[in-house]
């Protein structure tokens, strides 16, 4: 009896090579940094705390934005994205927001804008899989402990500090995973 395969590979499976990242920054000094919130619990507050952390080392301007927590954004929904030299996206502490978050970050990278998602540890494998399905396996993101949405200010600031310690390296093109190993 002949039977058929019910699965469908992503387009990336037949692609010859991974898509390139956007050109990286050499500093955040004087740059316009997008803070893109998916408006889930604590997302905007986390971005504000990250801004405060990064502002200790760099002078930069802010471009606020929002994105959908559950899907890839359309071109006309991006707001002032093209005004940004780089973007930070938060947050990813559930399945849909972490994987759609990295998918949206990949779209930003395709437009030439370095993008850093902040996502929590339980979703690392799902984020990795999404980067492969979107054919951009080289993209990095900031990984912090779970959760984000239910934290009080003290713990949320700790998450922000941890994220902020990773974000410049991602924007500069340093290999976080290799460094960790």
């Amino acid at each position, binding site marked *: 009896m002949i039977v058929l395969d019910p699965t469908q590979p992503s387009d990336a499976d037949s692609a010859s090579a991974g898509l390139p990242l956007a050109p990286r920054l050499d500093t955040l000094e004087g740059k316009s940094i997008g803070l893109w919130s998916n408006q889930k619990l604590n997302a905007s507050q986390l971005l504000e705390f990250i801004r405060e952390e990064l502002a200790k080392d760099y002078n930069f301007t802010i471009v606020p934005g929002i994105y959908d927590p559950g*899907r890839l954004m359309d071109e006309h929904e991006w707001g002032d994205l093209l005004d940004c030299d780089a973007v930070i996206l938060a947050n990813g502490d559930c399945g849909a927001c972490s994987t759609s978050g990295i998918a949206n970050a990949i779209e930003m990278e395709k437009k030439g804008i370095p993008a850093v998602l902040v996502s929590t540890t339980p979703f690392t494998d799902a984020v990795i899989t999404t980067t492969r399905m979107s054919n951009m396996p080289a993209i990095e993101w900031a990984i912090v402990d779970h959760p984000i949405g239910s934290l009080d200010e003290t713990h949320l600031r700790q998450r922000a500090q941890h994220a902020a310690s990773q974000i410049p390296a991602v924007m500069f093109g340093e290999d976080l995973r290799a460094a960790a190993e």
Partner: protein
Amino acid sequence: MNETLQFDVSDFDEANEFYHAKGWTDGLPIIPPTPEKVARFLDAAGLEADSKIGYYNEREIPVYAEKLAINAVMAGCLPEYFPVVVAIVEAMLEHDFPTHVVNTSTGSFTIGFIVNGPIRHKLGMNFHGNMLGPGNRANSSIGRAVRLIQINTLASIAGAGGEPHEHGRPKLDRSMMGQPAKYAGYHIIENEEAFPSLLPVHVERGFAPEDSTITLMFTSGYNWICAHSEQTPDAWIDTMAHYIVGAGNLRPSGCAALLLPIENAALFANAGWTKADIREALYDGTRRSVAWLKREGWKVSFQRPRLEEVEPGDEENFMAVAGSASPDELFVVPCGGPAGSWPYYLQGMMNAVTRKIRTPS
């Protein structure tokens, strides 16, 4: 499209063991999808194997008719059911439908689809007792086909928390608990004939009565409510509104479905109420002031106004905290057995989409 891989197995049992080992099932036995059966399904929908149904943006997966037919065979569908499966998947892949949330969220969501029009009779679908299952082949297998498509074609492998891969496939369905309705969804078939004055969902949404449609939503599950002692429309609305709010899934956005028992639908039809009247009354009945929300300790859309102080203006600031974004986004569906007053309320999330079911002429 890439050529579909074929495998040679000795019999039904070996086929099932092979598909289980590959992680291509929902844990239950499947009907082996042979090329002959798949071809009959495609013919029934007037589609070619490489007919493109849509594209799953977040995972960059092109979706072709052949893959849908393979999964529909596996689910136990008959060929004539296949156009319904296709319409549901087309709706899933529309921009306005949050398929990625259903496929990936920790919220253990599942789809619900309301079937309207002549196809209900053509396929022998059940809108009487046990409509949601078990028992009716079309009701059950169409919903199961969509779940298998989510698993196989849309790459939503369940089981997060153990090994990151199941049978070599990454676990992208991050449901925390899952739920029984993920096997076959909420297959909601409207009893359009019982009360003609209560216009069917598809007619209210602009389709002709002779059109066959599906209206797709997604939901976390249903609230089961007793309404046996409410013998006037107003009393029924009052009870429902209180229990819907009391269920605690308070959202000022999205859609919802009300599965209206025949006994209860008679109350409204005999009193001259339309579905619009029911929707408006429930919408009004679930409005609460912001001050009330804070004092009573509720969350709204997962936010926590209970932690906030009541401020000037909160007493006068009312919002619809349960049900739907607007009265128009509440689907009232007469259905179920001839006796019993157990309405089901399905709180949806985000948008619903209605699609016409296309069958070859």
